[in-house]
């Protein structure tokens, strides 16, 4: 081989090495987060934007030291349907205390499906009860969400009313004693929040007459804010984001598909994202098996769901 070619090949390999080092956190996260088999390295070629509607189940768990890593509930469950053709999206918050039959487990709160069977069980519980098909899931833990928001540079949220909670769990990075609590006062108005404060905003519930429903609404609001913030990003930001997760995210979405989804992100803003929270009369509070639960009125819920998730 001529020497000139050897030199060119050397520079090419050095350049690829530099790129590989830059994208290394992304490869590591992809390999550790996907349950659909080992990830191949993402290609950097242009991606084809999706055109068919797809549904993703977004799951969030309190994964602090109170819980064994393999015994987590999902405190937040949001079903997201995106139609790239009509440029319409719908977010449906599923109450964590919804009392439902869970496949292969019997009756329970829908939040416990994940605890007993992982993401697949949570997906199965949603599919069987809501009569929908779920294409993918994304699970994120507390620290993962905090780090994600911080790496995005914070998020802007419009706080609708004072969010007050005298018993907010002090469970982030608290080592072996995660049972302490502290006071939270999120003041109303448009605010730029870092990850910890955004988490306080979406987790607080004690001081609000709407309890968990208010929390669901704020979680949807945070998702829109994260989406707005992520619209500034490009593929070069992915390694930085990936390194933030450190095992705090699990998804069935591969890196290449993630890039494809990124490409349609700018088509969606607050105007064409419909938000649904199953407040009364779709649900009612009550007691079952000695627990405070939320009973579904499927006669009202299913027509609503099928309108948005055909």
């Amino acid at each position, binding site marked *: 081989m001529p020497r000139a070619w050897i030199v060119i090949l050397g520079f090419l390999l*050095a350049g690829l090495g530099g790129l590989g080092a*830059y994208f290394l956190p992304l490869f590591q996260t992809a390999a550790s987060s996907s349950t659909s088999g080992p990830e191949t390295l993402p290609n950097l070629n242009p991606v084809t934007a999706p055109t068919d509607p797809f549904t993703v189940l977004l799951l969030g768990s309190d994964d602090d030291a109170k819980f064994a890593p393999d015994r987590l509930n999902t405190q937040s469950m949001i079903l997201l349907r995106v139609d790239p053709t009509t440029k319409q999206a719908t977010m449906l918050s599923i109450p964590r205390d919804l009392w439902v039959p869970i496949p292969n487990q019997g009756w329970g709160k829908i939040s416990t499906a994940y605890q007993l069977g992982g993401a697949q069980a949570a997906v199965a519980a949603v599919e069987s009860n809501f009569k929908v098909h779920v294409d993918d899931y994304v699970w994120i833990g507390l620290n993962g969400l905090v780090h994600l928001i911080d790496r995005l540079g*914070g998020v*802007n949220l419009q706080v609708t009313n004072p969010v007050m909670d005298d018993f907010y769990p002090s469970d982030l990075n608290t080592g072996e004693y995660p049972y302490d609590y502290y006071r939270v006062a999120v003041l*109303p108005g448009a605010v730029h929040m870092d990850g910890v404060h955004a988490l306080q905003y979406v987790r607080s519930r004690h001081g609000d007459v*709407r309890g968990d429903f208010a929390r669901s609404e704020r979680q949807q609001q945070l998702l829109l804010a994260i989406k707005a913030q992520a619209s500034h990003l*490009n593929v*070069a930001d992915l390694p930085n984001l990936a390194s933030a997760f450190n095992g705090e995210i699990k998804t069935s979405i591969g890196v290449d598909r993630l890039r494809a989804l990124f490409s349609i992100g700018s088509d969606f803003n607050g105007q064409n994202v419909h938000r649904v929270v199953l407040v009364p009369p779709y649900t009612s509070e009550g007691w079952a098996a000695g627990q405070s639960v939320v009973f579904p009125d499927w006669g009202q819920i299913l027509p609503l769901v099928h309108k948005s998730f055909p």
Partner: protein
Amino acid sequence: MRWLIGFGLLVAMLAFGIGIYHAAGLLSGARPSVHRPTEVSATPLPGTLYVVQAGAIYRFQHGNFTQITKEDGWMQPSVAPAGGQLVAVRRQMNFSDLYLLTTGGKQVAQLTRNYTPGAAESNHWSFYPRISPDGATLFYDYDPKSIYNSYQVDLAIFASPADPNGRGSVQWTLPNDFTGGDVNPIPLRAGGLLYTKYSIDDSFQVHAQIWVQRGPRSAGQALTAPELDCGQPALSADEKLLAMVCTKGSSQTAELDAAAFDPAALTLGSPATLVANQMLAAPAVSPDGKTIAYLAPSSPGGQFQLWTVDSSGPASVRDITRDLGLDSTSAPAWVGA
């Protein structure tokens, strides 16, 4: 010589690889860093404004910022009507207190003592201090404890003597239960009080309204309709112009509205929209009533900057700062001197 060239090429390849690594990082869409106000100069505004960033109060005069307190949880400064002194909040873990400060930021007196050792929930918050136009009374938010439900924490507006040696407090407002409470007190010259009240309707929608009361615990009346979701009132010195932030049910954008206020009849005229479709907060009316300052990001998702708009109309929006990270829960305090 050949080995030297080979070694040189190897170093060059290594440098090229490192260069590619850093070049990839430069393509990132990350946001620019936030500067301290003292590091920048800005478009001058008439008078003096006090703003907050990262827990420190800054004085803005002649286009320059001066830091007057440490970064130590300070927020929501308000200027005493006689000038010469500020009232501000110092927020800490689980509680916050009100302090009287000189305009240079030196502590004159601690006005509340909300810290309680022991259980976190035994502590109290104080926010949004405002001294009445006659200088006699300090209005502020405080969280009285419910004897029936320890989960209930609703802010109510209280009044105490502005004199640090004075004693006693009166609860002015009765917030709707489990809404978070009433906020943003603005005492009126004739003795009434403007503020923001929250309610939650049967379909679980939150509404903000500008309310006015003539006296402590009096019935009060709404000045804006629930569906407009208006809050964060700011009143001109002559009490004839009211600026407010209205979201109209949106959780992503708001508008800055201004309306004529009749302080005698306690009525509000039809609002005019000065700024629309922005995530904005914390309006403050200039001493001459002709300009409204407010905080808003300069790009979606960005940190909050200082803006102004003439009260006459939307054509006059000006960005005063561009790369700060101002505290949007602290409305600018704007005085003439």
